[in-house]
């Protein structure tokens, strides 16, 4: 029976990490992969007080064929109707794209999760506007408006990927202490799956996904899972993670102090497309077997990246070793992305404590 790439940290990956650490030891602090950015704090012992998170949104079905979130939201809504749930914090549960969910497709006209930039949210709508654009503005009214004081405090948007990424919290800030502490909490508590923090360095106005509508927010991405089906272990992991997140919010709101710590943050640098035929634009190669399923294992210049259908190896020609992720995500073929590449660095997070306004 072929071994599936289930949240597996490959042994080759570990030796890559060891190689990086010895590189760091041998070179000065300016070189090496883990560049330190200026900290926002004078010293690590400073405590940061942050407002309570009084409203949290859990969203699923933003892509209608990413089924863990669809089923999780359905189950939460069912329990609500039966009156089983008692919440200490106001939780809004949202099925983001009902039409796409009903048809079990990613989207019906345009990708909903690219419709939340400030520009898109302020486009005037007409009869010809795509369904998902109308929907994004409705969701912005429900959970936002983005950038205003009325916006929900935290959005957790549930996603699946065909890539072997374990659990990732994907967000636009590397200094959002709420998101970073939640990630740390999940890392400590979840035993069955690796948990990582992925950062897209976009200013809020250009942030294009649903999670950017809240004051804090992240996409919770779990893979690998094919689109259009539900795997038990992936669903269980997502259920556990959402529960842990809500537990953390309750603890935070009740005044618990969370100690300072540090966390690895993966920041997107660039994406790489498949080799394509110059005339037909069809792809001519697949992700190389040595790279397939090795998300977050360091990719070095010269490492195999693609294997053409005729058997030739295409190698990574970049100058800098980087961490690949979203390797072979089926929805990204049409976006021209075979894999994304990130730099990794350690971020210091301060102790935090809630303050009531």
């Amino acid at each position: 029976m072929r071994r599936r790439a289930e949240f597996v940290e490959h042994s080759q990956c570990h030796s890559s990490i060891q190689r990086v650490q010895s590189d760091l030891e041998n070179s000065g602090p300016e070189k090496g992969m883990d560049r330190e950015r200026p900290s926002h704090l004078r010293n690590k012992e400073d405590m940061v007080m942050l407002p309570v998170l009084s409203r949290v949104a859990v969203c699923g079905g933003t892509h209608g064929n990413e089924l863990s979130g669809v089923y999780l939201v359905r189950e939460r809504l069912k329990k609500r109707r039966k009156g089983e749930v008692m919440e200490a914090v106001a939780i809004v549960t949202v099925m983001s794209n009902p039409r796409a969910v009903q048809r079990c497709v990613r989207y019906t006209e345009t990708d909903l999760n690219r419709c939340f930039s400030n520009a898109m949210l302020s486009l005037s709508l007409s009869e010809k506007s795509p369904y998902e654009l109308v929907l994004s503005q409705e969701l912005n009214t429900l959970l936002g408006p983005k950038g205003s004081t009325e916006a929900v405090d935290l959005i957790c948007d549930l996603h699946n990927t065909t890539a072997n990424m374990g659990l990732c919290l994907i967000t636009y800030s590397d200094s959002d202490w709420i998101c970073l502490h939640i990630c740390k909490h999940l890392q400590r508590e979840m035993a069955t799956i690796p948990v990582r923090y992925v950062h897209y360095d976009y200013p809020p106005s250009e942030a294009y996904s649903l999670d950017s509508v809240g004051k804090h927010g992240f996409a919770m991405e779990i893979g690998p899972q094919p689109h259009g089906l539900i795997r038990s272990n992936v669903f269980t992991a997502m259920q556990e993670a959402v529960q842990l997140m809500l537990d953390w919010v309750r603890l935070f709101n009740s005044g618990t102090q969370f100690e300072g710590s540090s966390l690895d943050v993966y920041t997107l640098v660039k994406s790489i497309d498949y080799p394509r035929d110059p005339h037909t634009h069809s792809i001519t190669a697949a992700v190389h077997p040595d790279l397939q399923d090795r998300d977050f294992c360091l990719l070095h210049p010269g490492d195999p990246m693609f294997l053409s259908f005729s058997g030739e190896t295409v190698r990574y020609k970049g100058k800098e070793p980087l961490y690949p992720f979203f390797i072979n995500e089926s929805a990204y073929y049409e976006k021209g992305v075979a894999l994304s590449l990130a730099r990794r660095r350690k971020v210091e997070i301060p102790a935090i404590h809630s303050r009531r306004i």
Partner: protein
Amino acid sequence: MLHMEVVTIPILRRMAVCGGTHGNEMSGVYLVPELERQRKEKGDSIWPIPLTTVLSNPRAIKACTRYVDKDLNRCFTSDILSSPITESTPYEVRRAQELNTLLGPKATDDAIDIVCDLHNTTANMGLTIISYSHSNWICLHIFRYLQTLITTVPVRLVLLDIPISEAYSLESVGKYGISLEVGPQPQGVIRADIFNVMKEGVNGVLEWVRKFNSGQVIEGGSIEAFTVEKSIDFPRDPETKTVMVTIHPQLQDQDFCLLKPGDPMFLKFSGEVVKYEDDEQFHPLFINEAAYYEKGIAFHLAKKRTLTIPSIQAKKD
């Protein structure tokens, strides 16, 4: 070994390899153009017999979906192939009739000898050869050869015991039709390792045809085949018909293993286990195939049989 009579079968003259019968099953979508590239580079003589390559469902391939109007791979029954075309005829029915003209007509002497249709599944099925029982002994021998040739993944045979007029899939158009089903692979994704298995499989079929056509005796023996007896659906919400469970972790990925009474089958979202209650033991396959949710199938259940196949030899004119 007991001496068995050698069965003579006419030499094989023409073959077709079809990909993209489901537009989001990517190994076939990319192997077909790769075969054409090989033809352009090295000439037809690389193959033992004239080879036709077909992208079965171009519209679905373009949209990267399984089908546009209707599942193409259910459109090859004699009834559908002979139904009149009107303005409201689904795209795939028209396409099925075109393919029947190109590769058939089904159940006539003009039909192409071998049709090899390429598929992927999200289920953990390794390389599964699917064929109809009426296409003995060629397909069974091809399976036997592939099973000895390919060692990177398990190779198994599924036989559909359906009369030819009711046979609904594309490969039934040929005199000898086989489907190569390789998984697990998500829809819309091309994995290099799965592509290589498919390539090995197609090359293996071509190598076997070369051996057969050379006139040598191909030794018979015994093989194992799985025949589908029934299917099990997911437990569903009675009102909304939405699925209420997941495949139990102990059953997920266990295609072709034995499912015994009392074994876990599904896991409800509440945590409750739904067990297999039937008296008989079966072998489940197509466990958690994404495309089968809408067909009301969580998995098929099959019986394993041992068949004896005779030695065969090509009969030259």
